[in-house]
């Protein structure tokens, strides 16, 4: 593969010091007043012209949230977060539900262009070799443009912003919202349930194979804006959908909070593939600033033989607290988790998955690759449990950690529970260092220390990279290299 080489080439052209996506778009925004109380929740709900039931749902979550505490079990530390010092809603002022891309603020489109998002429909259509990707772009809190709607509609696939779904498909939303991640689930998910602003909604009807990859780019633009997306994906019986999520945020001095919730539901024989490439601002060399990424992602394999597969490449954020999970309810359903988590500088990653085997003959597979460099701490935390009725449940877990340098740490914390004697759970874990021998071998052939590190790390994570859709894999490879800059020498 020439992709490693390409990675190296691309990095050459990038200023090492500058976080590539660290620009701020000068767009006016329509903000809720700072702070969080019932009024904030009502403000958000009324801004979005939501039905009464959803307002009530939010308020209930908010009241519950007031009684909850931040989880303390993760291996991360940060100064206390002042939840009253955050804006909970910011909509770009100039983008009230555009009818077409022509109506979208050109500054927004330029921002997306900088991010390399193929938002402009014509461009995508013109790009003959490029596989079709429909993009629902979330700029701060409001989805500004959705492409390929028509073609998706022909297939019967609903792909729209969450707000739109509330308006146009209230029954679906009401039926499934909170059915995987209940509003009381955990501190951050409950906060999200109270104040979520927007996100994406996907419904794939029975027997339909979604004709293209669906893609969302999230971007935190407004200063002090917490971003609270809500994503809901339903794959009805016998359907298939692949969903890509990319995340970037501009460079800021202060920390920004991000607490998203993603719910996936796969009915009988349905399959959902959910891929994430996350490169939010990780903070500066002293560990100042950066995103706090406290995310709840969970999939429910509700029907028999359904399948949910999570693939994630995490390179950004100051703190990552994230455990994309699968509830394997349906008989012979399958959950997969493929993860690359790279940390450098002062980043803290506590990430992993949960595979909850409830149904008979359910299977799951976990492949996690953690790479720690600089002064970062990188923890894999995973739970595999086989419940009483999960006869024949099988899990295979492989967790590998790679250390670069002397000051970082890699930790593996598996929780394994089997309540059914027939369950088979395998766990393999390794921790290794980029060896001096490997480095010298590469240098002896003329590669620089950075080229060598990129090559070795890309080799280390290759099994997982191969799970990503082609276009994402290239982007991911590039990000991995960028995120490791300065980790050697």
């Amino acid at each position: 593969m020439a992709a490693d080489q390409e990675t190296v080439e691309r990095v050459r052209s990038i200023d090492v010091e500058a976080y590539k996506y660290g620009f701020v778009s000068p767009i006016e925004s329509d903000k809720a007043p700072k702070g969080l109380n019932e009024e904030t929740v009502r403000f958000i709900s009324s801004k979005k012209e939501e039905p009464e039931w959803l307002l009530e749902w939010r308020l209930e979550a908010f009241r519950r949230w007031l009684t909850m505490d931040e989880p303390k079990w993760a291996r991360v530390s940060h100064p206390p977060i002042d939840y009253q010092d955050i804006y909970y809603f910011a909509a770009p002022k100039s983008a009230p539900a555009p009818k077409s891309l022509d109506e979208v603020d050109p500054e927004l489109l330029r921002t997306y262009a900088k991010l390399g998002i193929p938002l402009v429909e014509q461009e995508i259509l013109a790009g003959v070799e490029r596989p079709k990707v429909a993009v629902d772009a979330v700029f701060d809190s409001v989805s500004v443009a959705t492409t390929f709607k028509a073609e998706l509609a022909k297939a019967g696939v609903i792909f729209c912003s969450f707000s739109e779904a509330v308006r146009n498909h209230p029954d679906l939303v009401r039926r499934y919202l909170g059915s995987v991640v209940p509003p009381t689930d955990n501190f951050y998910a409950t906060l999200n349930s109270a104040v979520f602003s927007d996100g994406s909604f996907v419904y794939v009807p029975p027997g339909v194979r979604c004709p293209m990859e669906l893609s969302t780019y999230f971007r935190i633009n407004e200063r002090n804006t917490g971003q609270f997306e809500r994503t809901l994906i339903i794959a009805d019986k016998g359907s298939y959908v692949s969903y890509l999520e990319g995340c970037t945020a501009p460079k800021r001095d202060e920390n920004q909070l991000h607490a998203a919730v993603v719910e996936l539901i796969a009915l009988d024989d349905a399959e959902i593939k959910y891929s994430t490439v996350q490169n939010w601002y990780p903070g500066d060399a002293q560990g100042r600033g950066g995103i706090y990424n406290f995310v709840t992602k969970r999939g429910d394999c509700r029907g028999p033989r359904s399948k949910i597969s999570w693939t994630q490449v995490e390179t950004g954020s100051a703190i990552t607290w994230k455990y994309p999970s699968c509830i394997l309810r349906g008989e012979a359903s399958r959950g997969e988790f493929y993860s690359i988590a790279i940390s450098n500088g002062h980043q803290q990653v506590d990430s992993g998955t949960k595979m909850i085997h409830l149904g008979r003959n359910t299977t799951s597979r976990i492949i996690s690759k953690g790479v720690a460099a600089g002064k970062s701490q990188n923890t894999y935390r995973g739970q595999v449990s086989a419940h009483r009725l999960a006869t024949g449940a099988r899990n295979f877990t492989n967790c590998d950690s790679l250390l670069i340098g002397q000051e970082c740490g890699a930790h593996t914390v598996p929780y394994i529970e089997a309540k059914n004697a027939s369950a088979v759970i395998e766990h393999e874990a390794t921790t290794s260092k980029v060896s001096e021998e490997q480095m010298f071998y590469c240098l002896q052939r003329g590669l620089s220390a950075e080229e060598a590190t990129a090559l070795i790390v890309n080799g280390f994570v290759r099994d997982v990279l191969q799970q990503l859709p082609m276009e994402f894999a290239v982007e991911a490879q590039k990000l991995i290299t960028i995120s490791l800059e300065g980790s050697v020498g």
Partner: protein
Amino acid sequence: MTSGAPDSGRRPMLEIRNLSVSVQDKMILDGLSLNANAGDVAAIMGPNGSGKSTLAYVIAGKPGYEVVSGEIIFDGENILDLEPNERALKGVFLAFQYPTEIPGVGAMTFLKAALNAQRRARGESDLTTPDFMRRVREAAQALKIEQEMLRRPLNVGFSGGEKKRFEVLQMALLAPRVGILDETDSGLDIDALRIVAEGINALRDPDRVFLVITHYQRLLDHIRPDVVHVMAKGRIVATGGPELALALERDGYRDYAEEAA
């Protein structure tokens, strides 16, 4: 071929002067001096522990070796202060005795990365994929390397012989000016030995120096050296022509080991 050329008028390409090197306070090279002229194939022979591999590593710049004194002059420049990759880019190549495995990195990916790194350092553009593939195919064929092997991760699951052949393949593609072969013959059966030796012979060039480190005469049956150096206890204790290697094969190293002590 240069082997028959007269010595006079040939310029020294690599000069090692009074080199002393220690590892964890133990002196491994002890005032070693050695000259190699452009076009030379120099065999370096000696018993186990005489410092042959250390010499190879120190020329290539491997970390962990403390140069106590001395110089290594390559093309008139002391390369001891250069990083290992800078030396590689100047044309120093080491065929490793125990090539390192790098899981997940395809052998082809690695070859291309190395080749292009060296091309860029010379101000040349990257090879196009078809051009690269063609070069690799040709070089691999000459060394009887299967394409399948090149699709595997670097050195992972390679047999001993495959590893050595892959080292020579890299050398052929990178076309270095100083080729150091560290016991490339060990682990090779007689057929593989001949193939590898032919590969090396094909690279003999008036503007290239080879240091061939070996225990045994048998490699030198196929690669005829211009000079044979005998190493013992960290220095060169004898230098001669090919007949010296034959004498060693017959009498062993005992005399030299005593002489160095």
